[in-house]
Structures are given as structure tokens and as C-alpha cells.
């Protein structure tokens, strides 16, 4: 059994104004090793990285973007969530990894668990609950995009990112999220039959260097799921 992201099948349910869609095939929790990621990109990246690390039998759960912490707390009430042995939680550090760690500590407590003492570690209890905040436990801010970019810093295509970075410095108004913009530039510079439009697709197409030392901390964190 490999790691899997359960695909949703959309039916026709939506309200009369088309505001929200329901009708997704309900996803049960079926595995005892859970990896919770923030958004589709992150989960697609994990799917590739876990395969690379030969870690299987893990259920990757995509939550959030918006209301990540609220949705994280909701997980504890899903059927069979309480049967999990290992719960690895990941999220972006964004503008302040330290304050993100503190707010995640609070959310993990609301789930009924003791949080780990440090970023990148587990609580070593039952279930074993871990927390990893991107890009790495040594960074004060950032996101998964930054970590992926770190893995390709020495690649010749990264020059495109450097040039782009220098160029937009002179603009009166630049992109709102520089890390995401750099990922787009890097992926746009890569060869391939189809353009990878996001980080997760880039991972599936093999554009991130999974051998990079930059991933050591994350690999150490994920190896607990073995």
C-alpha cells in the first residue's frame, strides 16, 4: 500500500446561487500514519517526497489554506482519527515562524494532544504528534516554496530567478508573494512537454532536487512515518 491523497469526485450539489459545492465523495481516515499538509501543493510535494524516501502506508490529509488551524482542530472529530499512531502536521511559517509555532501549539492542544517542544520534532507520546514549520526549523519566516527553491539554488535555471529578483526590485509595485513568484519563474524556465504551473506539479515533474541537503530536516521529520 502506498501513500495516497484521496481524490474527490464532484457530484452536482451546489446551492442555487452556485456559492458552494458539496457532493464530494467522503474521505474516510483509513491509515494509522497521517501527514497533514496545508493545501494541495504541499500534499502533492509530500506525495513525491514520501515516494522518494520509500515511506509508504501514509495518508496525506489536505486541509486549509484558509482557516488552517480551525480545520486542523476539526480533524480530531473525524471518524477513526483517534486510531492514528503518528500524526505529522506541517504548515508554512509565513512572516513569523516563532509566532506560527505558538499558535500551532495552541491548536494541537485543542486537538487534545501535547505539542512537541520544538519545530521539526514530535511529542513522543501516543499518538506521536509532530510539527514541522516550513521552510526549515532554522528559519524565522518563509514557506514551502522557499524550501523548494533552496533545493535548486545551484541549478543553472536558478539564474532566471536571480535575474527576476533583481529586476522587480526596481518596480514601483511587485508581486504580493515573492516566494510563489520565484517558484513560477523557476518552473517556467524548466524544459518539459507541459509547463508546471505550481509547486506540486513541479514536484511531480521532478523539478525539485530531492537529494539536496536543504531537505535534511524535513526528511528527518518524515522518516518517523516509516
Amino acid at each position: 500500500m502506498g501513500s495516497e491523497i484521496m481524490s474527490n469526485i464532484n457530484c452536482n450539489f451546489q446551492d442555487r446561487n452556485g456559492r458552494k459545492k458539496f457532493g464530494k465523495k467522503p474521505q474516510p481516515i483509513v491509515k494509522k500514519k497521517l501527514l497533514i499538509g496545508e493545501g494541495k501543493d504541499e500534499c502533492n510535494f509530500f506525495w513525491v517526497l514520501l515516494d522518494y524516501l520509500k515511506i509508504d502506508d501514509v495518508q496525506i490529509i489536505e486541509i486549509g489554506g484558509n482557516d488552517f488551524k480551525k480545520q486542523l482542530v476539526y480533524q480530531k472529530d473525524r471518524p477513526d482519527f483517534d486510531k492514528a499512531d503518528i500524526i505529522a502536521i506541517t504548515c508554512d511559517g509565513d512572516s513569523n515562524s516563532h509566532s506560527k509555532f505558538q499558535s500551532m501549539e495552541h491548536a494541537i492542544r485543542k486537538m487534545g494532544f501535547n505539542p512537541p517542544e520544538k519545530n521539526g520534532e514530535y511529542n513522543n507520546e501516543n499518538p506521536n504528534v509532530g510539527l514541522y514549520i516550513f521552510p526549515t526549523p532554522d528559519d524565522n519566516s518563509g514557506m514551502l516554496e522557499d524550501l523548494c527553491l533552496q533545493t535548486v539554488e545551484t541549478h543553472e535555471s536558478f539564474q532566471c530567478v536571480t535575474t527576476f529578483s533583481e529586476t522587480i526590485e526596481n518596480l514601483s509595485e511587485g508581486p504580493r508573494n515573492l516566494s510563489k513568484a520565484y517558484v513560477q519563474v523557476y518552473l517556467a524556465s524548466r524544459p518539459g512537454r507541459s509547463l508546471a504551473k505550481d509547486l506540486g506539479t513541479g514536484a511531480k515533474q521532478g523539478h525539485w532536487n530531492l537529494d539536496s541537503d536543504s531537505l535534511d530536516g524535513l526528511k528527518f521529520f518524515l522518516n518517523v512515518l516509516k
Partner: protein
Amino acid sequence: MFKNLKIENFRGITDLEVNDFRQFNLFVGKNNAGKSTILEAIFLLINPSNPELPIKINDMRNISAFKPENWDLFFHNLKKEIDIKLSCELTNSEIRYLKIKPLMDSSFDSIVPNENSIVKIETNNLISHEGIELIYAYQSKNHRVNEQVSSFRLNQTPKGPEIKINTKHTVPSYLKKLNGIYIHSGFVSEAIGKRFGKIVENNNEDRIIKVSKKVDPLIQNLKLGPDNTLLCDVGLKRSLPLNVMGGGLIKILSVIVAISEVENGILIIDEIENGLHISLQEILWKTIFETAKEYNVQIFATTHSSECLDALMITAYDICNENVEDIRLYRIEKDLDRFKIINYDHDMLYTSLEKGWEVR
């Protein structure tokens, strides 16, 4: 309306408490988790002084009341020595208690072991298989507790078995009546005509005809035939009895007429999605929301269907708008003899369904 419910030693449930009931309450959970037992407990507490209700709930499970051993099936693990205790609080602050005990056989009353007795009397030996006893008490705002006892006994007569009901005290006149109807999963449509007749008497049949047309566009009118048969005018030379129409129409009509009849009371629906095609789920919920609000009826239902839950949320946001707080979903989890209730408020349910997370 019910605010909460506590169940001890009733059928498969050892100890369970459900809080925070709203107007629309839906129970989910695996088979044999206790969903139907919860509905039965609510049904008994709607009118705990009505001695027919225990017979009815066994009957709905096709359990004959005329077999003495079937009284045992009310008791958890058939342990008659442990009383069943049900209680609830209503929104008017009334608290109701119902204790169900096996009926003690009076022929054993005279046995009093003395010092020289070598006979060991075990509790079970003192209990007759002949019936059960209901002990009902309530506590109102002024904290008075009143008690009422009813008992059933199975009598063997020359004509066959009969159930004898013995009510030791009369129903207190100050006890407010609470109406309730239980639509079980194997329901039959015979009550629909009778209830529809009452609605016609009050000139309230328009809504029912309108809903029926949505379910089956061929329907032009509904009318009451002989023997309270509900007839559907579909443009043929004679009207057709409801029983030959689709199961979806029967289901939706049974719900809407029941809500109309049980005004200011409780409607219980076991396996609400039963007999309904996915395309009718939204019509069912729209009908329920509109009529239950109009008639001030609290709904308790069970389902196994994810489509039913989706339809519930879609319709709730369309009909209830800001009143989505009136909706609660409870998942019953059973692990051996331990029960756990997961209470989903509207946001948690909405998020779960939107994200495609299993809630059942």
C-alpha cells in the same frame, strides 16, 4: 422541545448523554451504534406516561409483544436486574425521568428467607418474565417531583395472550402534553390518509399538493378516498391510491403530514433517506425546514447517506439563512460498551462536507 437526553442500560446502550439539541437533529454512525435506540428513548420520553409506547417501539422492530421473553430486549445485555433510566430536559426547563423495571412477580412476594433457610434466592429468580413497569417522574421549574407508575403484564387468556396495562396513578392534569410521531424505516403509508384528512379539515392541503407536484409532475391533485385512502389525481379517468405511486412521494408525504399533525411537538424519522432517490433529497429537506418551522416541530432523524447530508446543508443555507445554528449532527461511536458522541455544529458540518471529509 428537547434540550438534552441521557440513556442508561437501554437496549445496546450502557451510558450515553446527548446535549445541545436544536430544532433539526441528525444522527449518524455505524450500524448497531445505537442510533435507533436513541430515537426510541426520545419517543418514550415524549409521553412517558403512555404505556403503549414500549409496545410500539418493539413492534417497529418487528418484535412481538406477545412473547414474554421479548420484554427482556429492552434491557442492556438482557440484564433485567439493572434498571433502564432515561431522562431529558425540555426547553421549558421541565426535566423528565423514566425508569423501566421488570415487573416483579407477586407470587414471590411472600417468600421471606429466615435464619434457617438454606435456599439462596438470586435476584433473577425473583423477576417475572411477564411484563415491565414504567416509573415516570418529572421536575418542573418549582422543583416539585411527581411520580407515576404504569405496568404491563402479559396475560394468557382462553382467547390467547393479551397485554394488560395497569396504571396506578392517573396522569397529572397539569402535565403538558407533548405530541410526537415516529416514522420508522419500514414505515407503511396507512397513516398518511388519516393525517391528510385532518389537514384538509383545516384547509391546509395546498402546500402538500404543491410538494407532491414537485416530486411527481403528473400529480394534479390529492384527495381523500374511502377508508382514509389518499388518492392521487394524475389525469387518468380515476385517481390512483398513493400506494401505487413512487416510494419517494410516499416518504415525503408521510413526513409533511406528520409535521402538520404534530404541531409544537416532535417528529422522529429513522433512516430518513430510505426510499428516496438522490434527486428528491433536497425537496425532502426543503419540505422539512419550511413545515417544521411553520408548525414549530423539532426533528430527530438518522441517516447513513452522504447525499442526504449534502442536501441538508445545501437546503439549510437556502432556507434557514442565518438560522443554520438550528442544525446539529451527532455521530454516535461505540467501542465495546463505551459510547462517544461527536457533536457537529453547522460550521464543522459545512466545512467537513465542503472538504469531502467523512462524518458518518
